[in-house]
């Protein structure tokens, strides 16, 4: 145990046909530190982790544990070395209890009979020790995302893992839950665990990590102490250029009302109460209105009601003065509304369609792409796709014929944005358009939204990210439990004030 490093990956190179995913990358995780791994989508973070878990064998380079070279052939080897990981998408059995999930695979038994009592004791002990509050007998489907994540962490601790890897752990959490997670990570560190924290959220890295290794396009850029650096510097290391955090906007030129919603009420799918209650709002041409709020306060149902995915219980919607309350989705889409959906895999894309087919998903039926006899004009579709790919810099392995499934998340989102914005809609409904994207892509998306506004169109943004809420819109509406509880000018408010309204601690009468 003379080496200060718990795990070392030295000069790792991993090639795939046509691409070097990891080019001579070195990552050294000290015992008892929180080490961030920072990089954009496609920088090689996932490949590096797959190498660590034995899913890929590197062409060059060695892995050392406590200074001794080890060979990791499959995830079981990694487990034996005490390496555990919390995946971005949890691997939990929904209808099992927390305890059942924790012991899954390492069930304590005597002659094949489960011995849950010891397991429960150990789990309760662990959760006390690290401040991981979660009810061991609750079912996964009944608990919050934050608690599910704690279950995943307990899973690693139960297996006595020493090296804990967190893959984008904050992507699914509310601001409060993120704070709690940061505290948990500090507790784990204090108990001597070594943590590898994969992220592209700079503020979190600055807040919790000791050191940070940066990857860019498969190459090793460097390892820095977070104490001696700034978020600005990290981001330029990651992206390779200076990122403009400040968003340039032209002076506002307000136009006519584009969207008018009166007393909209939408039923909930999960409980008996209405998810959206009596919401009224207006969006004018030349402005970005943002609906802010903590996830699950009726934003999704509001958007579904607005875009026609779900029927309204009551209320009406006018688009450019035309009543679209009962209009079918196709009618809304062709009357000037575009919708960047919250879930790009569920709604936004047909993953097993090619990129070009996805790019015409909203327009394939127009005469430009379909002949009178009903045949697709494949040449036109190809040209159009090539044009969008060029204009919006959508990157993929084989261009227009790439399967959407094979594209990175950021480029999938770019494809959706290209498709929706190229329709030149009067109203763009953008729901969490930067979810899961890296800094460079976020900058791109924000610029597109501002361009819509500056060219005199209306944008309705639904966001959970407070930074985005403060920077992008001209007007903020806070939604709490299905109601609009506050209206703010982003220039005249603070994140703290918004937080109070988002948490339901304060409300004002809003009537637009």
């Amino acid at each position, binding site marked *: 145990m003379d080496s200060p490093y718990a795990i070392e990956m030295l000069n790792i190179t991993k*090639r*795939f*046909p*046509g*691409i*070097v995913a990891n080019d001579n990358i070195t990552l050294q995780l000290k015992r008892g530190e929180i080490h961030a791994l920072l990089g954009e989508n496609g920088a090689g973070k996932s490949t590096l982790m797959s190498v660590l878990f034995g899913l890929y064998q590197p*062409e060059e380079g060695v892995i050392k544990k406590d200074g001794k070279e080890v060979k990791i052939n499959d995830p079981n080897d990694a487990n034996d070395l005490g390496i555990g990981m919390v995946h971005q998408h949890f691997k939990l059995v929904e209808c099992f209890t927390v305890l059942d999930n924790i012991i899954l695979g390492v069930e304590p038994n005597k002659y094949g009979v489960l011995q849950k009592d010891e397991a429960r004791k150990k789990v309760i002990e662990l959760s006390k020790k690290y401040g991981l509050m979660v009810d061991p007998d609750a079912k996964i489907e009944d608990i919050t995302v934050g608690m599910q994540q704690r279950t995943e962490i307990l899973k690693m601790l139960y297996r006595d893992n020493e090296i804990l890897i967190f893959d984008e752990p904050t992507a699914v959490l509310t601001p409060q839950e993120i704070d709690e997670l940061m505290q948990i990570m500090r507790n784990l560190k204090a108990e001597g665990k070594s943590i590898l924290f994969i992220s592209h959220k700079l503020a979190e890295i600055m807040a919790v990590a000791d050191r940070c290794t940066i990857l860019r*396009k*498969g190459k090793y850029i460097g390892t820095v102490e977070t104490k001696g650096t700034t978020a600005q510097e990290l981001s330029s290391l990651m992206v390779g250029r200076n990122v403009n955090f400040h968003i340039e906007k032209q002076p506002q030129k307000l136009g006519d009302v584009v969207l008018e919603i009166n007393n909209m009420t939408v039923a909930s799918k999960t409980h008996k109460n209405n998810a959206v209650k009596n919401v009224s709002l207006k969006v004018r041409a030349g402005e970005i209105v943002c609906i802010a709020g903590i996830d699950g306060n009726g934003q999704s149902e509001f958007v579904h009601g607005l*875009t026609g*995915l779900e029927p309204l219980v009551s209320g009406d919607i006018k688009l450019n003065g035309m009543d679209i309350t009962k209009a*079918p*989705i*196709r*009618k*809304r*889409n*062709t009357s000037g509304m575009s*919708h960047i*959906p919250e879930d790009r895999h*569920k*709604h*936004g*894309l*047909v*993953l*097993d*369609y090619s990129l070009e*087919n996805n790019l015409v*998903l*909203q327009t*394939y*039926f127009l005469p430009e792409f*379909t002949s009178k006899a*009903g*045949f*697709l004009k*494949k040449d036109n579709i190809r040209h159009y796709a090539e044009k969008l790919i060029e204009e919006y810099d959508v990157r993929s*392995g*084989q*261009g227009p014929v790439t399967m959407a499934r094979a594209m990175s998340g950021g480029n999938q989102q770019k494809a959706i944005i290209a498709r929706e914005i190229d329709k030149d809609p009067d109203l763009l409904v953008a729901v969490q358009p930067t979810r899961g994207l890296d800094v460079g892509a976020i900058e791109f998306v924000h610029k597109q939204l501002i361009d819509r506004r500056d060219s005199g169109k209306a944008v309705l943004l639904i966001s959970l990210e407070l930074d985005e809420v403060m920077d992008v819109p001209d007007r903020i509406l806070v939604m709490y439990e299905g109601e609009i509880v506050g209206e703010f000018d982003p220039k005249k408010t603070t994140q703290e004030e918004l937080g109070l309204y988002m948490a339901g601690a304060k409300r004002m009468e809003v009537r637009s």
Partner: protein
Amino acid sequence: MSKEKTNFFKKPGVQSLIASLICIILGLLIAFIVLLIINPQSAFSSISNIIKNFFWFKNPTSRLKYFGETLVKTVPLLMCALAVLFSYKVGLFNIGTPGQYCAGIVASLYAALKWQLGWIPCMLLAMIAGALLASIVGVLKAYLNVNEVISGIMLNWICLYFTNSTLTAVKNPSSKDTLTLASTNKGALLPTLGLDKLFKDKYVTIAIPIAILIAVIIMIVLDKTKFGYELKATGINKNAAKYCGMMEKSNIIVTLVISGALAGLGAAFYYLTDFEQWAVTSSTVPAMGFNGIAATFLGGLNPIGTIFSSYFITHITAGGAFVDLTKYSSQITDLISALIIYLCGFVLFMKTVMNNIIRKNEATKNENSKNEGGKN
């Protein structure tokens, strides 16, 4: 993105063909082994008789006649395979084809024998009957999210016994079969357009060219039209289809209706030739529907490939009759064809295996030529 030379074996068409051929060979091999175990002496002659089938006949006229009859029997299988394929491409597994095929039988025969209608209305009624039956599955799927496999299988049996009880009304009093069209209503027989003379077999009708034409049309509809684009999008991702304003519920129903109509039409294409009569005591659903699934996969999920795979399966099934029954029990015929058909369902698996082998080869090649670095 460097594309040197795309591996010949990486082309999807080539892969499907090779995978299908491997499955056929494996099936024959296993059948051969089974024969070998039961009776080693005549195993080789039996398996070669199965493959040779009518080519084994010395007389060229009877060879042609049997070829024609194999084609006649291929048509309903091809139609069922197309029905399965069409819904499968749209993300639905229509295992209700046997029932829809039955619906086609009852509609066409009842119309022909009881109502004395001509072949065109009989054919249309068969299509409508198949479509109606399938629409039940479609409505349940679209509006109540009932799994189409469950509701399809259940309806198969309901429809089988409905067919039996209905066709008893037009039964030949002296047998368990329905009356022949030749004796009752010649106007319901499908026209032959001289094909009967070509093959020296009166059962060879326009059903054969029409079925092939339908296969081509299905390929065009799925690949080249807006309709196909919508149906496939709905099949792959119902939510995305709804999001972009497609009528996702009616697309599901339309898909199954077309699929059912194809199966129903397949029944008309067979029973309106008078080649076979329906036995009203049948207690199993027609094998066509299930064999259609095997034919679909053996055909590489391609309508044109399905034509050949349907022919092959019919050929093998008929060839089973030429096993030497003095050496083997009479069930061996069905066992052998079942074995081969079963292996036909493994095409997708074979494709995966092939891809893994190709990938491994490439990986070793890459390791051998480390000096060659990639570009972004």
